[in-house]
């Protein structure tokens, strides 16, 4: 495989792609399959999910029962390496340290980026999510419609392999027939939630969409649909699809998937792309700035070789930013030149603006009906199987709810792999005089294990002037690169949404007969809402728009000022919908890469 070191760089590439995750992986795949010479530079090490992950290890086989530490911030067995909220020598700052005014930034330095750390929930934005300003008077409209993006959603769903069902729900779109893989059967708690929510509240609990193969992919038909008149691409994609096994219904996707059932960029995009012979990947390369020539065209990327600290210049006819939304913002701001003294794309001051994340809160209860169930394996596709799309769309759009953003609810239940906190998880429902221990704890544990139901809400957030990133005027990272300073503030609009989330979660849990150990946080939504960034759905900062005056990229993700530079990660999102961003990142990246290749063919760039 052409995994290279800086001294192996070619003189020039058709495209230099910064980042190897959902966006960068997608662009690299498509361009390499179409015969272009492509370089991917990644700040972390090379990764091989087929060899290095620990899928079936139980916590007693790990240090500290696999609990999180500063070295492994999502626990020992999570496949995130060299990753975290805080990383030595790679600081960022916040303008305010007041309650819920700080933004938290997860970085993932490894080949495949954050696709290695992902619940794999893959929902399409709905038609209304592209028209936030027009329909609700807040945030920004997207410069494209759902209908323009829909064919690309089909494509990325076919290549990634997404299970789910077409439910025909308003603003939670269906896929084209035959695209989705069958959803897994519901667990006991999900069936109970579906039954009670429907009967008592009129709410639908439906299969979530997730990038996990519940069935092997159709390697005989899908490649021809995705790469018409490209026999080589069809062959390589078919081979790669046949290397991916279907889920064996055990082990958390966050651990990485050695059998390739769960999507990650290395398994799905980079592995077949490397086989074209058109792709070089360069690990351990920390990008510092995008270079431009006197005409203002991008010419490449200056990066630091993390192995020895050396500085190098990778050159290309086009440059693709896919370093994760805020890292791409940082690169644009740090790319200062005579032509672009405020950084690339920033003549209007919009780079860094309109940072958003999901508006999230959660609630849980114990469900007596789920106690003492006959013992059975409830792993399923481990993790999310069911959810409630937002179902008060009409009331929301009519302004009857008092807030502007919808939210989805993710149900979390089941007889899951125990963790260190399992031992204390029965305290709230114990009948012991003190905290339970001894034989009583063992009896209560057998009774209550698996009877807890959690619900997580993730809601829309409109772009606004209070949430943005800029360069810190003083602080630099270990390589001397200026770092980001974040500004964050939840609006009343978002906090009202959180109250509604909490009320709906409590109503569903109540409908399931839940025993509450505390009331929902309806009085203090600021306490209930998860900190900015903590959902790891942060997007924006180089938003796409209809006009150069108020956005950073055009509708094809091309930086207005530099048309041979595209942004292929979440930075282009003009707001967060009540859907997870990754699927949309990939759909936009496919569309942007296609357009960039047309531009190249025509000689426009």
């Amino acid at each position, binding site marked *: 495989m052409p995994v290279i070191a800086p001294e192996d760089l070619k003189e020039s590439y058709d495209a230099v792609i910064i980042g190897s995750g959902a966006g960068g992986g997608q662009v690299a795949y498509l361009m390499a399959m179409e015969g272009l010479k492509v370089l991917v530079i990644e700040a972390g090490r090379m990764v091989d999910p087929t060899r*290095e*992950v*620990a899928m079936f290890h*139980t*916590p*007693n*086989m790990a*240090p500290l*029962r696999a609990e*999180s*530490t*500063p*070295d*492994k911030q999502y626990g020992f067995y999570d*496949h995130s*390496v*060299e990753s975290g909220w805080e*990383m030595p020598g790679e600081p960022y700052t916040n303008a305010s340290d007041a309650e819920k005014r700080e933004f938290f930034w997860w970085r993932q330095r490894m080949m495949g980026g954050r696709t290695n750390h992902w619940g794999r929930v893959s929902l399409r934005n709905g038609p209304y999510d592209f028209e936030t300003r027009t329909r609700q008077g807040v945030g920004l409209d997207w410069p494209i419609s759902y209908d323009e993006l829909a064919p690309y959603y089909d494509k990325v769903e076919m290549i990634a392999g997404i299970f789910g069902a077409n439910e025909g729900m308003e603003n939670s779109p269906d896929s084209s027939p035959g695209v989705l893989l069958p959803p*897994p*059967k*519901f*667990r*006991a708690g999900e*069936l*109970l939630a579906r039954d009670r929510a429907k009967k008592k509240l009129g709410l639908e609990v439906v299969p979530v969409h997730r990038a996990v193969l519940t069935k092997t992919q159709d390697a005989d038909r899908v490649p021809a649909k995705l790469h018409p008149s490209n026999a080589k691409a069809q062959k390589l994609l078919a081979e790669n699809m046949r290397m991916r096994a279907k*889920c*064996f*219904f055990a*082990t958390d996707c966050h651990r990485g998937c050695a059998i390739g059932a769960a999507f990650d960029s290395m398994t799905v995009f980079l592995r077949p792309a490397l086989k074209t012979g058109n792709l070089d990947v360069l690990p351990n390369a920390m990008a510092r700035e995008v270079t431009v020539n006197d005409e203002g065209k991008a010419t490449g990327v200056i990066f630091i070789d993390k192995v020895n600290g050396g500085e190098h210049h990778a050159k290309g006819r086009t440059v693709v930013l896919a370093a994760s939304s805020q890292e791409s913002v940082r690169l644009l701001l740090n790319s200062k030149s005579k032509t672009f003294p405020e950084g690339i794309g920033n003549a209007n001051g919009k780079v860094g603006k309109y940072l958003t994340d999901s508006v999230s809160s959660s609630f849980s209860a114990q469900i007596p*009906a*789920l106690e003492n*169930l*006959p*013992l*059975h*394996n*409830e*792993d399923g*596709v481990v993790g999310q199987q069911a959810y409630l799309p937002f179902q008060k769309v009409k009331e929301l759009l009519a302004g009857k709810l008092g807030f502007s953003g919808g939210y989805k609810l993710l149900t979390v239940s089941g*007889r*899951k*792999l125990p963790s*260190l*906190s*399992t*031992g*204390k998880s029965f*305290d*709230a429902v114990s009948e*012991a*005089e*003190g*905290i339970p*221990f*001894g034989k009583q*704890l*063992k009896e209560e544990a*057998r009774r209550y*294990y698996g009877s807890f139901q959690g619900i997580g809400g993730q809601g829309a957030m409109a772009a606004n002037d209070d949430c943005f990133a800029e360069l810190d005027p003083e602080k630099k990272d270990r390589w001397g690169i200026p770092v980001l300073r974040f500004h964050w503030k939840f609006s009343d609009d978002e906090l009202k949404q959180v109250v509604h989330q909490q009320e709906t979660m409590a109503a569903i849990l109540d409908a399931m007969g839940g025993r509450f*150990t505390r009331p929902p946080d309806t009085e203090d939504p600021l306490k209930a809402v998860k900190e900015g960034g903590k959902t790891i759905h942060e997007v924006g900062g180089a938003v796409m728009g209809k006009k150069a005056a108020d956005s950073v990229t055009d509708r094809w993700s091309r930086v207005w000022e530099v048309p041979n530079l595209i942004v292929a990660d979440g930075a282009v999102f003009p707001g967060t919908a009540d859907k997870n961003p990754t699927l949309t990142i990939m759909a936009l990246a496919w569309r942007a890469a296609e357009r960039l290749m047309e531009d190249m063919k025509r000689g426009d760039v």
Partner: protein
Amino acid sequence: MSEMKRIDRRVALKWISSAAASMPLIGSGQDASSDSAKAPGGKGYGPDPDLQRVYQPGDLWPLTFSDAQRATMIVLCDLIMPTDDTSPSASSLGVHDFVDEWISSPYPGQKTDRNAILKGLDWLDEEAGRQGEKDFVSLDGNAQFAICRDLSILAKKDRKAFPGSFFRRLRDLIAGGYYTTPEGMKDLGYRGNVAVAEWTGPPPEVLAKLGLEPQA
């Protein structure tokens, strides 16, 4: 142990417990740092450890317990997670060594637990002294259990005040350490973590108990 002594101890325990009764769901007990707990040596496993290796307590950093402390922890393991009709005790699964590994961790997250556990072990021996015994392990089983029961009540009343806070974290670690072993998981009724060809959903008897229709 005489009834009188028990009452005395309960009164004594009351004095040092705070009146505040709160029971939040998450979070760990906070103790003031104790001078008796010297900072542990050793280094962490770094940001890119071998995930597939099977680790044992003591593999990565030196352990802390003296022979006497380890003997006390074995007794506590079996008071908190004893053998019963269906499953073995915590000490037979080596949970005391996990507790040692935990409090010996070089990471900051375990420092509070280290202080609380080491201070708590001293306190148990002092309490045994008040009852006329050399140390906690020398007390008879009923007396040991009674101390645990009283501490469990203190822990429920106030999660922060010592010695209830010590017992809470001790219980969390021993019970959590127990349920993260294959034997503990089996006792809990966890039946997953095995590869299967198809996931068919809950079996009919589960649906029948819930009064739900079979899935399509």
